[in-house]
């Protein structure tokens, strides 16, 4: 593409940036790679041993990872909002900073979400988000919003690079074999024809309009993850705008810092002048003031309202023993210091503005920590755990190392990226008409006078603890057992005339009884001194063995109407033997229902068969009436037999099934003479159970509310339609370039 001399000369100045790496640069890069490798080691440790290696526990379930996640998504605002808004407003001084801002956005939007992944307990189940995704969950909103935002940011960055790549394609600065084919491919045959230029500008304008609401939405959704919960300090209506303002504040801060670093690193004094720092500084103090206002509003309302849980969070923040100094730094110093430095002209210089930004960025990181941790340390129910790590969160070396690794990766990606394309948009800078005015002053003199920021190597505190980790062997639980006592209990059941014996077999250990399963129990009929075996039954899971008494035995009449039975467990392996016996009589009990003067009643008739088979009424016996329910028998009445008959009132208020059917059980229980006798009857006199309504649980349902689905589809399709349109525009630029090429040939 054709450009003027000035631009070409300008391009040449970026040759060292693209080509050479200084010795110091190599060392820095190696250090960064080492820190990232340490992060990889920490990550592997976490995957192998589980999240136990982090400082997170049941109360503080989210820690540094989430703090970093919010922080990185926050600084991504530099590109989206700053460059988007400045582009739309056609602010003339934006040109040199726009690419850096976009790079911050893309890189931090790549790094930020990876912290969410670190926080997830089962990385292997990530596909579940797609397979089982529920759009009622703010996490799904977040995943959708961030991926959309990242796609938009990448397109935005790319659009802004097309012209420079076309320039580099036509005027190769380096011999680099790998660069030129990439330039050729990515420059999409851009020839800077009028039509192409028009299309490109149109696409960029469109995207900067789309990206602004999108960016606001991304951070709002992030805030809602916290705002939607019922936690003190989180459940706040201003959380979304509060997060957005804090994010732009920190994003601007990082942008200024990046500018400062590249300005020194690649000697961009001609491009990045004091005016850029001043203007961005002013934007920052406006945002800082806004952030301060939100903070004040947030804490004032919660302090004045003084709900007890809110007070507990505030207590933590205002308590010098807990988070007071962090709070002072994040809220007072982090806002007031930048404002003071930038507003007072005497203090205002490139270095001091960069320093103010550093303070603001650090303060914003600490603020995120103060949003997450103190709230999680103040659950609604007081923490009753005794282990200090469950009460108070302190990050471990794993978390610190991974935090450092994220920052290192951020810097490294910037470094790598700056080897690929000039950090300042060259073509557009060349087009700027009155740029010399901005370039006039280079403030080298002042730089010497002011605060020198020495680059401190970021050794994560946690690395020190690396050597101190101890490995605890998992406790092996073993239990030794020797002969276990068993107990057998034989019961007689006479239900509706069907007579059965039930043997309950239990083992006894450490004073506790437990049922024995799959053990053989022998049943015998005892007649005088003679024992006749009836059968052998294996116990069920509940330790019960049930056998029906053969009719033959009952009809034999027993000895004077009395029958003796015996059950034996012979013992097996470690279980010792046990026996039990029972004597029974042949009783016949019947239930009937009747109405007397409007009162509904239950009647029970009990007769005993003598040796001759003659039935006689059982005199004077307590009969209990029950209604069987899932876990228990509900006692509904009690009566005494008088001449073999007992009457009680029917429980008409008790719910039955849908037709009102209720089962009534009359019982003689554990009687010495009669054992257990039972009769059952069923009648529809109970309260009919209304048919079950399908309860709509709204958000809790498997399916999302329709309005939510429609909103999501509309929003997503709006954004992606624009993306698609922009991508088509890029292809149109390519076709136009091809057309121009073919014309040249002919």
């Amino acid at each position, binding site marked *: 593409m054709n450009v003027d001399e000035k631009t070409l000369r300008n391009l040449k100045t970026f040759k060292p940036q693209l080509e050479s790496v200084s010795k110091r640069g190599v060392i820095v890069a190696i250090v960064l790679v080492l820190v990232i490798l340490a992060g990889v080691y920490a990550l592997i440790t976490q995957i192998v041993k*589980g*999240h*136990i290696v982090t400082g997170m526990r*049941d109360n503080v*379930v*989210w820690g540094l990872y989430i703090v970093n996640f919010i922080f990185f998504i926050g600084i991504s605002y530099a590109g989206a909002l700053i460059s988007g808004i400045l582009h739309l407003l056609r602010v003339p001084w934006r040109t040199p900073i726009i690419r850096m801002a976009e790079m911050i956005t893309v890189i931090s939007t790549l790094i930020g979400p990876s912290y969410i992944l670190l926080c*997830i*307990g*089962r990385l292997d*189940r*990530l*596909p*579940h*988000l*797609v397979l*089982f*995704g*529920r*759009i*009622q*969950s*703010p*996490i799904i909103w977040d995943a*959708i919003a961030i991926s959309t935002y990242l796609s938009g940011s990448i397109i935005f960055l790319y659009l802004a690079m097309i012209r420079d790549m076309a320039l580099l394609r036509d005027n190769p600065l380096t011999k680099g074999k790998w660069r030129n084919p990439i330039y050729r491919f990515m420059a999409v045959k851009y020839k800077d024809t009028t039509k192409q230029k028009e299309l490109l500008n149109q696409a960029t304008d469109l995207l900067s309009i789309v990206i602004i609401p999108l960016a606001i939405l991304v951070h709002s959704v992030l805030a809602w*993850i*916290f705002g*939607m*919960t*019922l936690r003190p300090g989180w459940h706040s209506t201003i959380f979304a705008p509060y997060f957005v303002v804090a994010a732009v504040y920190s994003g601007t801060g990082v942008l200024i810092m990046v500018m400062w670093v590249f300005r020194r690193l690649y000697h961009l004094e001609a491009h990045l002048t004091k005016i850029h720092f001043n203007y961005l500084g002013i934007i920052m103090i406006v945002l800082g003031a806004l952030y301060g206002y939100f903070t004040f509003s947030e804490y004032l309302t919660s302090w004045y309202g003084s709900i007890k849980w809110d007070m*507990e969070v505030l*207590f933590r923040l205002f308590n010098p023993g807990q988070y007071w100094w962090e709070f002072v730094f994040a809220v007072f110093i982090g806002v007031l210091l930048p404002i003071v430095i930038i507003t007072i002209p005497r203090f205002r210089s490139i270095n001091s503005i960069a320093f103010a930004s550093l303070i603001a960025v650090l303060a914003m990181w600490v603020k995120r920590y103060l949003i997450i941790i103190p709230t999680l340390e103040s*659950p*609604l*129910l*007081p*923490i*009753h755990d005794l282990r200090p790590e469950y009460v108070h969160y302190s990050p471990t070396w794993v978390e610190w190392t991974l935090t450092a690794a994220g920052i290192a990766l951020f810097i490294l990606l910037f470094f790598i990226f700056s080897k690929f394309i000039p950090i300042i948009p060259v073509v557009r800078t060349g087009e700027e008409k009155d740029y010399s005015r901005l370039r006039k002053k280079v403030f080298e003199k002042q730089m010497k006078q002011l605060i020198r920021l020495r680059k401190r190597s970021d050794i994560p505190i946690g690395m020190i603890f690396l050597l101190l980790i101890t490995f605890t062997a*998992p406790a092996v*639980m073993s239990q030794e057992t020797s002969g276990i006592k068993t107990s057998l209990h034989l019961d007689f*059941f006479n239900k509706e005339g069907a007579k059965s014996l039930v043997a*309950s077999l239990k083992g006894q250990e450490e004073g506790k009884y437990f049922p024995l399963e799959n053990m053989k129990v022998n049943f015998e009929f005892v007649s005088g001194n003679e024992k006749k075996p009836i059968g052998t039954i294996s116990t069920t899971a*509940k330790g019960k063995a049930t056998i029906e008494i053969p009719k033959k035995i009952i009809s034999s009449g027993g000895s004077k109407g009395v029958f003796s039975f015996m059950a034996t467990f012979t013992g097996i392996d470690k279980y010792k033997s046990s026996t039990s016996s029972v004597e029974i009589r042949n009783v016949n009990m019947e239930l009937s229902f009747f109405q007397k003067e409007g009162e509904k009643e239950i009647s029970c008739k009990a007769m005993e068969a003598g040796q001759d088979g003659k039935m006689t009424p059982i005199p004077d016996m307590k009969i209990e009436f029950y209604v*069987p*329910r899932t*876990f*228990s*028998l*509900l006692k509904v009445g009690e009566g005494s037999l008088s001449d073999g008959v007992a009457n009680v009132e029917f429980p008409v208020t*008790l*719910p039955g*099934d849908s037709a009102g059917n209720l089962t009534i059980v009359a019982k003689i229980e554990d009687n010495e003479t009669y054992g*257990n006798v039972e009769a059952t009857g*069923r009648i529809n006199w109970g309260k009919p*159970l209304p048919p*079950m309504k399908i309860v709509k*649980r709204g*958000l*809790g349902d*498997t399916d999302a509310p329709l309005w939510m*689905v429609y909103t999501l589809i509309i929003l997503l399709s709006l954004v992606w339609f624009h993306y698609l349109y922009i991508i088509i525009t890029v292809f149109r630029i390519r076709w136009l370039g091809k057309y121009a090429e073919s014309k040249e040939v002919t």
Partner: protein
Amino acid sequence: MKNKNASRRKFLKLGLAAGASALIGGGSVLSAISKVNKPAGGDKVKMLSPEGKLMEVDRGHALCCGVPTSKEVRKGIPGRHFVMVIDLSKCRNARKCVSACSKMHFLQPGQEYIKVFLMQDSEDTSPYWFPKPCFHCDAPACVNVCPVGATFKREDGVVLIDNERCIGCKFCMAACPYSSRVFNWKKPGLKPEANYSPESSVPQKIGTVGKCDFCPDSFVSGILPDCVTACPNGVYYFGDKNEDVVTNGVEALRFSELVKNKSAYRYMEELGTRPSVYYLPPVDRSFPYERGFEELPEEMKKAYKVKRAHLKKFKI
């Protein structure tokens, strides 16, 4: 309507799947829970009464049998609404519920599905012991926020977690206002020989969330949850609200009469979560609250005291 919803979900899933298919790679991760057919049964079903006696009831009254399929697990037992009533006047922090629960769920040391809090509502009121299982809310905040539907509310009122679906994001833990959930920070030490089912929550799975599940694996066969039977003082009453009966294993009471006569309340009703656990106020106590310290180890006593001092500081 049902079809419409289904197709809508399909459409959404398709869209999402297309969006992230690059990330996923091959392999379906859908691990289906082992499907076992229900054994054929007659009209009558044998059940165990709390007194340990067998009884036969209509199938309509019995709960389902056999290992349920994953669909059945998510649906629950139709026509039921399980509730718990906790009588605070009887609790003396014996902690038998805690140990029984930890034992049956093979919990890692230090994990508790039931926690016993020492509560004091205000400076002048008396402290009391407050056992707290999962409340199985009817409007559960945890279920709302789950991104993958790993935790779900069943028709019978129970809130369960599918640990084979849970991705471990811990959002439910942040969302639950009652701190009912615990995380498996490391590999579970005890490995019971059992096939996993959300109804038993056993064995635990590393990197996922666990909580009190109301023991649906036992109550399908009419057995009360272990905390209920383990309590020496009969503090816990469990039952089906639709049947209008709750029992602590010793006595069975009409639910509606119990909550009415003893003015039961639900903890933090104002949060709108509609818990399924009701509390009977700590009036006419069976034990002075100091009894709760008796069997505790020294350090725990101290910790409870520290906690109380802390509460006083906030005047709560």
